[in-house]
């Protein structure tokens, strides 16, 4: 198609108005190209600066030590461990919930209830994540008068559920209908058909959605500010107490007036970015070009 398009102006450039049209067209094409280049500049700029500044800050201390109780020094170990724990618990909460909701919408729900639920999930995705932080704060922090890691996990989970639900649902929709029909015709019960045929067939797709949701949750800061709060202590397993996370660590240290702490923020940003980009590249590279998105 582009071949045809580029052939046309060449044959049309005859009169003055045709020349003008051709110039407009070419300017337009160049502008589009320039815009596309502008779009990817920030990506490379962010990655480059994080890589350079972060690599300079990476050290054994950053990976293995908690922040000093007072003053400057220590590392991001509390944040790294906290992020891993809270995101894992959030995933454990959100994955079954999201998948079950998707199963209901695509297999059991009537047309009208499915529309309402889908719409609610869309609205939920659009709600600013900081409001989710306030929401969970009211129910899981205020009554106990204690910021706690569990509240952080719940806030992250609530953000993950609609994402997992919608991607799972899309994958279920891609499963050829004759597979479950064949199973049902053979007398396999519906629940078994859904688990062993529908979900099994769409498993890679479901995993894709889950991994992307995890990567996003790992980078969320706002919902953790009023729930897990952050902490200077290494907290392993005590979800009733505050816990640090990499995004909080980055935010807090970026605001300190000390170069050494700013450097730690860059180091932590490099770790976080490495994780998020690796997941995204691996997952999306598989699905690249399968569906225009």
């Amino acid at each position, binding site marked *: 198609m582009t071949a045809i398009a580029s052939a046309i102006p060449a044959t049309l450039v005859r009169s003055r108005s045709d020349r003008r049209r051709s110039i*407009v067209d070419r300017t337009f094409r160049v502008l589009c*190209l320039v815009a596309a280049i502008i779009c990817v500049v920030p*990506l490379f700029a962010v990655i480059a600066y994080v890589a350079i500044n972060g690599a300079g800050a990476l050290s054994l201390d950053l990976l293995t030590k908690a922040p000093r109780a007072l003053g400057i020094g220590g590392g991001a170990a509390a944040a790294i461990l906290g992020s891993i724990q809270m995101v894992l618990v959030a995933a454990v909460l959100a994955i079954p919930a999201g998948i079950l909701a998707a199963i209901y919408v695509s297999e059991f729900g009537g047309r009208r209830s499915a529309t309402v639920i889908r719409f609610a999930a869309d609205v939920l995705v*659009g709600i600013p994540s900081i409001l989710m932080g306030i929401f969970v704060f009211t129910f899981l922090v205020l009554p106990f008068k204690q910021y706690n890691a569990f509240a952080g996990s719940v806030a992250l989970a609530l953000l993950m559920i609609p994402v997992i639900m919608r991607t799972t649902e899309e994958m279920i929709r891609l499963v050829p209908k004759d597979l*479950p029909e064949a199973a049902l015709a053979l007398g396999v019960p519906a629940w078994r058909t859904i688990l062993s045929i529908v979900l099994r067939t769409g498993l890679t797709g479901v995993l894709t959605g889950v991994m992307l949701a995890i990567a*996003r949750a790992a980078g969320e800061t706002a919902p953790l500010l009023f729930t897990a709060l952050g902490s200077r202590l290494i907290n392993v397993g005590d979800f009733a107490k505050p816990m640090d996370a990499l995004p909080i660590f980055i935010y807090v240290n970026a605001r300190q007036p000390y170069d050494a702490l700013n450097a730690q923020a860059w180091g932590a940003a490099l770790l976080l970015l490495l994780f998020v980009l690796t997941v*995204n590249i691996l997952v999306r590279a598989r699905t690249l070009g399968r569906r225009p998105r």
Partner: protein
Amino acid sequence: MTTLRRPNGLRGGSTSRLPDRVMKAGSGLFAGGVVALVVAIGLMLAVSSRVTWSTFGLSFVTGTDWDPVASIYGALPFIVGTLVTSLLALLLAAPIGLLTAIFLAELAPRRVALPLSFLVELLAAIPSVVIGLWGVFVLSPVLRGTVEDWVTHTLGTVVPFFAGPTFGVGIFAAGVILAIMILPTIVAISREVITAVPLSQREAMLALGATRWETVTKVVLPYAASGIVGAVILGLGRALGETMAVTMVIGNKTQVPTRLFDQGQTISSQIATTFNEASIGLQTSSLIALGLVLLVMTIGLNVVARLLVRRVAGDGVGMATGG
């Protein structure tokens, strides 16, 4: 073909057995939970902010002072901050995003368009706090030394809106950061609605001897117009609620901004920076009232945007990038 499809999933199949009913009820619980969650968030914000609404009424929205010491709370500085930064972001991101979407959908060969869309998607995946970090230490100083310096010394000498002083961090930097963050949303969804325009429409134009520019402006864009507007509004919705990156580059000063390079505060950045230290009572209630204002703004925009996008490209479009 459609007669062979299950009209509504497995409904009407063998769902009479007990395990089937358990699964239906169990999954229905979570699906209903999604709806309940949306309602619960709205209700919670309304209930927890009732002290503010009963104290100030609607003048909370128009009040310009936010003074915890005097117990006076007005939301206008943050509402204006939110709107100005988001509109600025839109002004920058909408044209660039639309041109990029046209490039990806209409002009670029597949082997260029695919990796390029991939890169734009990656931009959306970068955590907000990392973009904020870059914004504070890299982008703001650069903006101050170039654009802000230049504008204040030229336009700024005539129009007060463009006058200094400049800080680097502020409304303008926040707008630029937001523009970067909503570009992927605008590009991805515009591209989808443009792709949804029937090929025959373009072919007819090209067969008549039209250039690409004429094809795009006279056929493709009019056809996809409402979807593109939807994409832009979805981007706006994202800009309104974006928290961390904005908090880090806006300067965190409670004032109604009157100049482009002023420091300011958005609704979400005000909540992020002061919620933990707020005293329970009127101050917390007022911050939650701010949250309610933000919720109403974003939900309203999202609903309108999705209806517009759906009109052009059908159900389920733009989900993965919608957040």
